[in-house]
């Protein structure tokens, strides 16, 4: 699968002519069906969140049955539903909590990103991989998974093959973590806050990080989302750092407008999330209205998690042995060090 295909697969499509909306319907209906089946299944299994069922059902369907292409365009919208779900999630978190979690998260995130990039570059060099592939894996694990890799690929003029390997590596580990982390969290006796920080800091892709948090508990999911947003907010700065580094070496283009460069990579939906959190904290909504906002968030997340599962096609994830090993090393280092940081802080 080429980077271009991955970009198209992972990105929310732009909204075009009215006629095109019909093309989204089959995939959207499948997202709703799979997500709702996960919600129903969770009612019958104690201590299991619907998130895991929605993802598992989606994965089972997409890997067992070759889905007709007519579903693809609708399934690809799940990142848009994720962003909308996060905007409405603002209603479930008081402004003070957002600021508190965000500030603590930001400090831990800086350490986590540095570890990730340094370990990835070191292991890539030891494995004989290109320096740029090491940087891409480091950026993917450290910040925002696929979005960060795509952003960095253009900024540092990396090879398409390197980006494909880095993205495949991130997706493989992301899928694995959604199921492994909640199990480990319960095994280690972590509380919702500590687990939320751990998932938000160390799970690679935004959808998977949010899913992992909510797979543990509602409270953990809220913390994981805010911490992951802190990571995403730093994406522009880290990619800018790499762009300047490679431009100085003469292997990438110069960055003309640094402020614009950072703004283009800033997750703007974060502004919507902050606005709703602030409005709720200021008492702009009645309790019943807050409940509706909160439920809207849950319904959009339901579509998202179904989309995460339906997009996990194992036959497309051919990372290559060495990039996979480097990814495994970086993931293990980041998961271990972030867990130790969290156990020390909380």
């Amino acid at each position: 699968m080429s980077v271009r295909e991955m970009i198209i697969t992972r990105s929310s499509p732009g909204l075009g002519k009215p006629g095109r909306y019909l093309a989204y319907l089959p995939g959207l209906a499948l997202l709703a069906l799979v997500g709702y089946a996960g919600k129903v299944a969770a009612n019958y299994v104690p201590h299991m969140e619907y998130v895991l069922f929605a993802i598992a059902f989606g994965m089972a369907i997409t890997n067992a049955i070759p889905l007709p292409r007519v579903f693809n365009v609708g399934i690809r919208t799940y990142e848009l539903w994720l962003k909308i779900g996060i905007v409405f999630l603002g209603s479930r978190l008081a402004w003070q909590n957002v600021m508190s979690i965000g500030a603590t998260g930001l400090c831990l995130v800086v350490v986590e990103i540095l570890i990730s990039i340094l370990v990835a570059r070191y292991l890539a060099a030891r494995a004989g991989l290109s320096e740029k592939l090491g940087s891409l894996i480091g950026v993917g694990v450290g910040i925002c998974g696929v979005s960060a890799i795509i952003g960095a690929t253009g900024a540092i003029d990396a090879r398409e093959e390197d980006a494909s390997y880095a993205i495949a590596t991130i997706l493989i580990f992301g899928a694995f973590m959604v199921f492994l982390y909640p199990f480990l969290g319960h095994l280690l006796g972590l509380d919702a806050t500590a687990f939320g920080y751990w998932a938000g800091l160390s799970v690679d892709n935004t959808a998977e990080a949010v899913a992992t948090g909510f797979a543990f508990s509602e409270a953990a999911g809220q913390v994981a989302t805010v911490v992951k947003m802190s990571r995403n907010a730093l994406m522009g700065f880290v990619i800018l750092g790499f762009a300047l580094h490679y431009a100085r070496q003469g292997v990438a283009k110069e960055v003309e407008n640094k402020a614009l460069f950072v703004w283009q990579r800033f997750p703007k939906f974060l502004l919507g999330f902050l606005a709703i959190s602030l409005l709720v904290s200021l008492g702009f909504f009645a309790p019943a209205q807050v409940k509706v906002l909160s439920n809207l968030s849950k319904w959009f997340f339901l579509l998202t998690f179904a989309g995460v599962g339906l997009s996990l096609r194992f036959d497309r994830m051919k990372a290559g042995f060495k990039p996979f090993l480097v990814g495994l090393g970086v993931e293990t280092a980041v998961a271990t060090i972030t867990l130790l940081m969290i156990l020390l802080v909380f």
Partner: protein
Amino acid sequence: MSLSKVKLSADWWAVIVGAVGIVAIKLGILTHLPW
């Protein structure tokens, strides 16, 4: 269409849907949504 434009579009659409949701709730159009 460049990737940055695609991403910008999804980000801003999320903000727009959030704003529409707020207006609908304040106008009493969306008063009850079960989970």
